[in-house]
């Protein structure tokens, strides 16, 4: 694997992402977002166990469980990050982030997993409440 060739200035990468945002609004009429896709995913999964119940829930009537522009956008983020990481030698399989490892030890895989899971539950509940 190649050596990590280093990142770009966050000002440059951020500015360019602004250009991507402008083009998206211009061409597709779509503004960036990610958290709605987690609602659609939850709905798609719940449909497997009880489609009738999902069809009657207010929030899934408002945010219909289906694959849409944003859902594919989120998949694209995964793939784009992977392409960038692999081609620059900065792809690294890691179960515990460096900062976490310095504080809690590199072997604390389970505490990290539990914290990330609980954090995810809480973060998404808050994000959805604020409509973000």
């Amino acid at each position, binding site marked *: 694997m190649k050596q990590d060739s280093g990142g770009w200035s966050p000002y440059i990468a*951020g500015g360019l992402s*602004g250009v991507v945002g402008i083009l998206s609004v211009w061409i597709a009429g779509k503004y960036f977002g990610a958290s709605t896709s987690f609602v659609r995913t939850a709905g798609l999964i719940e449909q497997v166990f009880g489609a009738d119940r999902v069809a009657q829930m207010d929030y899934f009537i408002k945010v219909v469980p289906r694959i849409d522009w944003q859902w594919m956008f*989120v998949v694209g983020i995964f793939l784009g990050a992977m392409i960038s990481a692999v081609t620059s030698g900065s792809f690294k399989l890691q179960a515990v982030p460096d900062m976490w490892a310095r504080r809690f030890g590199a072997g604390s895989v389970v505490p990290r997993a539990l914290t990330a899971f609980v954090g995810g539950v809480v973060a998404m509940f808050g994000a*959805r409440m604020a409509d973000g």
Partner: protein
Amino acid sequence: MKMLIYGLVTGLFFGFLLQKGRVLRYDKQLGALRLMDMTIVKFMLSSVIVGMVGIYLLYDLGMVKLSIKATILGPVIIGALIFGIGWGLLGYCPGTSMGAVGEGRWDALWGILGMVVGAALFAEAYPMLLRTVYTWGDLGKITVPEVLGVSHWIIIPLFIVAAVLMFRWFEKKGL
């Protein structure tokens, strides 16, 4: 189908740039929350500055529509506080969690799983929240220029000046 391809391609570019900016990492996100490393703030504000100028230009030319969300103080303030607690624990936000997995930081997978559960729980709580939190402080679909009664071309330069001053201060302090 065309929209799905647009979504995928836009995400590819955005994910590529997020990775290049090194903003997908737990250390960068916690670094910002611990006021130690402002990389993600630099990335976000640079994106916002470029985006706001371009989109308002196109808006003035009648070529795009704005997407303004309602400002309801109750859910925005309470939701943001809840989100912040979760973000601090997880160390990724919804979009960056996917990018983090793409970069190999697979602890983000636990967060993604948690976020799907969080979304499902929110859907359960929604009818109750609609009767309570969502009725607190509904200001409607407002914007800063509209509330102040000035052109957006007054607010945008002021925003850019404030951001650049902050960038300079970050660089001086080595943040």
